């Protein structure tokens, strides 16, 4: 059976070119980048070259980009590191209700440590209100953390304006750009970003590698202490193959950004419009224009998301009901509740995310299959009586 992957927001396949770039670093140039000998110095040199390549894609200097074990670690580091290091300045953190759990659960942990967190509401399209944000700032506020692009509904926040407000009040601004990086052009300087989390496996790079941009001069504590790697800020033998692969993927994404966006937007709109045209009682979630180029998120009334996913999977189509890492949870998505959907509608959500290997035929087949599936499940549903 044909396999159609429409879950690029959960993770992407690693591109062939990326794997090829990584391979020599497993078996040949395998040195520890901290070693003085040739094996080590070769690794060190490619490490710094990779850092530079990635930094360039976000208009940062290499010494502001730190590698981590993924996006979640970067999120944890940014929030815990900045809040703990700036206790003297204040104990207040502002975020939104639709953040990834990497942010939200870190906030819960920080609350247990005595910090105060404001969770901003979003509107029906998933947008944070700039007025509400500004109003939430107190003289205790140290950090604002608002995600660049939401992983479930794809809404993109006005990051630059958020950073402007933060800086106007002398507050630091972190953004979780795990979904945005590689899908929109990011310039940390122009966009007033002080810290930014990114992850390799969302941009056709390897899993288990990510990074945190930290503007120069920011006080931040470590969360992983030990060796002097990453300028004494993140211990652990550097994952050179992962780093090299991440950098290759980042550069490829950056060079191809416009074509990638155009293609994704075309297919996304075709998919979303196609579904909305043929399936009644459906709601297209997220912002109509300010959204991830590949994100489609739709709620189908009267049916439940997991049943939908299983049925799609039986037809070879891989989708998601929202964020991958909360599957197994029985609660509906916190993001869909935050945009004001009632529980029963939120339960019927489907996220289809398009990527570089998606074809027009994939989209057509998906629309067709989805129509059948929704119809079948609705006929089984006690809530459906049309």
């Amino acid at each position, binding site marked *: 059976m044909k396999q159609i992957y429409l879950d690029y927001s959960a993770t992407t396949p690693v591109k062939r070119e990326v794997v090829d770039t990584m391979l020599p670093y497993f078996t040949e140039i395998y040195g520890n980048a901290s070693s003085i000998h040739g094996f080590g110095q070769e690794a060190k040199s490619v490490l710094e070259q990779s850092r530079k390549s990635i930094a360039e894609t976000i208009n940062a200097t290499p010494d502001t980009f730190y590698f981590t074990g993924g996006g979640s670690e970067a999120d944890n580091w940014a929030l815990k590191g900045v809040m703990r290091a700036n206790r003297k300045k204040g104990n207040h953190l502002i975020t939104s209700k639709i953040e990834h759990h990497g942010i939200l659960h870190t906030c819960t942990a920080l609350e247990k440590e005595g910090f105060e967190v404001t969770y901003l509401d979003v509107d029906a399209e998933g947008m944070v209100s700039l007025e509400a944000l500004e109003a939430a700032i107190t003289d205790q506020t140290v950090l604002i953390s608002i995600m660049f692009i939401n992983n479930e509904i794809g809404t993109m926040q006005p990051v630059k304006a958020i950073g402007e407000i933060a800086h106007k009040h002398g507050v630091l601004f972190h953004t979780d750009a795990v979904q945005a990086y590689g899908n929109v052009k990011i310039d940390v300087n122009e966009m007033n970003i002080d810290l930014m989390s990114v992850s390799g496996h969302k941009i056709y790079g390897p899993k288990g590698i990510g990074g945190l941009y930290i503007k120069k001069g920011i006080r931040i504590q470590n969360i992983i202490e030990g060796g002097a790697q990453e300028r004494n800020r993140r211990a652990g033998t550097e994952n050179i193959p992962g780093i090299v692969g991440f950098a290759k993927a980042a550069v490829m994404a950056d060079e191809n950004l416009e074509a990638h966006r155009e293609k994704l937007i075309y297919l996304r709109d075709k998919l979303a419009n196609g579904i909305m045209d043929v399936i009644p009682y459906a709601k297209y979630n997220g912002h109509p224009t300010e959204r991830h180029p590949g994100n489609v998120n739709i709620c189908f009334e*009267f*049916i*439940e*998301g*997991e*049943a939908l996913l*299983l*049925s799609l999977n*039986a037809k070879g189509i891989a989708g998601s009901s929202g964020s991958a890492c909360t599957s*197994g949870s*029985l609660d*509906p998505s916190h993001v869909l509740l935050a945009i004001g959907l009632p*529980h*029963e509608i939120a*339960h019927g959500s489907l996220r289809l995310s398009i990527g570089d290997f998606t074809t027009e035929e994939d989209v057509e087949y998906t629309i067709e299959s989805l129509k059948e599936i929704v119809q079948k499940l609705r*006929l*089984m*549903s*006690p*809530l459906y009586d049309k």
Partner: protein
Amino acid sequence: MLYTEKVMDHFMNPRNVGEIENADGVGEVGNVKCGDIMRIYIKVEGDQIVDVKFKTFGCGSAIAASSVATELIMGKTIDEALALTNKQVIDELGGLPPVKVHCSVLAEQALKAAIYDYATKNALTFKGLEGYDPDEDHHDHDVVDIEF
């Protein structure tokens, strides 16, 4: 796979989906907020369940559990049907992930609710319904030890 082949079979090809017009008993359990509602219809002749149908709003295993439960009691006596446990439903499905055990409980409870409805309408009593309270909330997601 998340589910056994048996679960997937009953999910993809559910038996006894639908409604029974003028059913002798109808039971509905679950909660739309939790994303699961199960409704079971029974037709009774003498003490025998001669037809049973279901409609379910819920996850894959809720649908599979409904299907299996209706299959297990089709043609059985009321007393036999009342003896059905969620454990039997799980066994018949070849197992369910721990987080999905409650879906099988829903099936057991929906069936009991349907028989209770039949019993109430016909002023009958059954041993298997002793102590049964249709308004009790049998639907507690937290009782299962979530392992994943």
